[in-house]
């Protein structure tokens, strides 16, 4: 039947001649392409060992910050949970006892602080809402796991490790 658009192109398949049937030139041609790529610059990187430079405002896993004396900054005010559009954050507040002043900055602290990483959409609103500069999304990518319960990150994973501020090296800009 006549094509309506007139753009149809009928290909004719001719039988291959002996030279083509030997395949050798075709193999050589293909190999030459492969070998040429050995000497080209590779566009991929070996990810876990090698990491591409991240954007400065990349938002990864949350971390709960400590102040210059190593005390937790979070005071469980609940503004992060309020601002969270995915409702991923929950917390339980507790009162600081006498003798715990070196652990917590304010008289109230978060005894339990949980973020459900499956709910989190990494929008950074919690970071913006925090009045105490306690939460930042400055971690790496949240890694894969097998069970749903393992994605509920508690304080053990979120609070940044203690550091000595005098030992910190200032990065040269």
């Amino acid at each position, binding site marked *: 039947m006549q094509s309506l658009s007139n753009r149809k192109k009928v290909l004719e398949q001719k039988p291959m001649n002996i030279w083509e049937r030997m395949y050798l030139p075709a193999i050589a041609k293909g190999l030459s392409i492969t070998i040429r790529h050995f000497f080209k610059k590779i566009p991929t990187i070996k990810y876990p060992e090698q990491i591409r430079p991240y954007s400065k405002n990349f938002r990864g896993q949350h971390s709960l910050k400590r102040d210059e004396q190593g005390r937790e900054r979070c*005071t*469980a*005010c*609940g*503004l992060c*949970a*309020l601002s969270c559009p995915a*409702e991923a954050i929950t917390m339980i*507040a*507790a*009162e600081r006892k006498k003798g715990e002043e070196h652990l917590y900055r*304010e*008289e*109230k602290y978060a005894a339990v602080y949980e973020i459900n990483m499956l709910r989190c959409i990494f929008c950074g609103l919690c970071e913006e809402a925090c*009045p*105490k500069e306690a939460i930042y999304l400055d971690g790496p990518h949240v890694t894969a796991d097998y069970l749903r319960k393992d994605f509920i990150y508690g304080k053990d994973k979120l609070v940044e490790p203690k550091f000595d501020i005098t030992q910190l090296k200032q990065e040269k800009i």
Partner: protein
Amino acid sequence: MAEEEVKFKVTIDGIPVEVAPGTTILNAARQIGGDIVPPAMCYYSKLEGSGGKCRTCLVKVAKGSEKDPRPMPKLVASCRTTVMDGMEVHNITSPEVIEARRGVVEFLLINHPLDCPVCDQAGECKLQDLSYEHGLEQTRFEFSKRTFERIDIGGKIQLHMNRCILCYRCVYVANQLTDNREHGIIGRGIHSEISTYIEKALDSDFIGNVIDVCPVGALTDRTFRFKNRVWFTKPVNAHRDCPTCSGKVTLWYKGEDVLRVTGRKDEFGEVEEFICDTCRFETKSTADWILEEPAPIDHESVIAANHYYEFNLPPVIQENKKLQLANEEQLARTERLK
């Protein structure tokens, strides 16, 4: 001979209203309602003699009365000034008032610790609302703020003198609701503080009301201390048969638990009826109460955030029977909450 009821005609921000003689400008404005009501930190309509302390309710009187149309020379405290016939008052329409109010807020915040993230009052704090509306974003106060130790008044009430703005409301509650006066203000000027004289425990049936009348977080419920944030709890009106008080309260739920019991507050943040301490502190389970309905919350309040009480019908559904049937479940849910 029946005496004709005299009504004074007042104009507040261009809105005329007729009120009885002896009404204050603030109450006249409250009869109109809306944005033109001056904020009040110390005035409390249920407490006799309150008002005149905080100066946040300052208004400009552009015309004294019909007989004497001269304006008042200075801004006046609307909670203490009674209306005259033909008075013209400027509140939010006067830049002078806005400027003065900003100054007052700055003064109130001079010694305020601004520990809202820790404070249990945050979310329903009058000072928070006021400074959000009128205050500067930064403080100009360079000196150290006065500080006090936290004091437990009795077993159930906690006094944070740091946060107090000296509105005297709690003193009036103690004077007028309880038998004998047990606490007051000692010291003068910057040294004044609310005190119970040697931290004497306050034990009266109605002393818990000082928590409700406190506009800031100076007097807070110890049984609710750090339990949860106000805006994560859900207010529900309830009542019970109480021998000492009316028993009409608001329960603040988190899930199944009643975290806190307070008096029912109206749109100006004043309790409708004072409740006794048994209702406030002792009866904290649903079984003690007869539930009525979700307490009405101003939709601009943070407490209303993330709560969806009503399923707003899109106009399409309102007209279409088929769609109404399809959304039956949602509509029924809204009907229950109404």
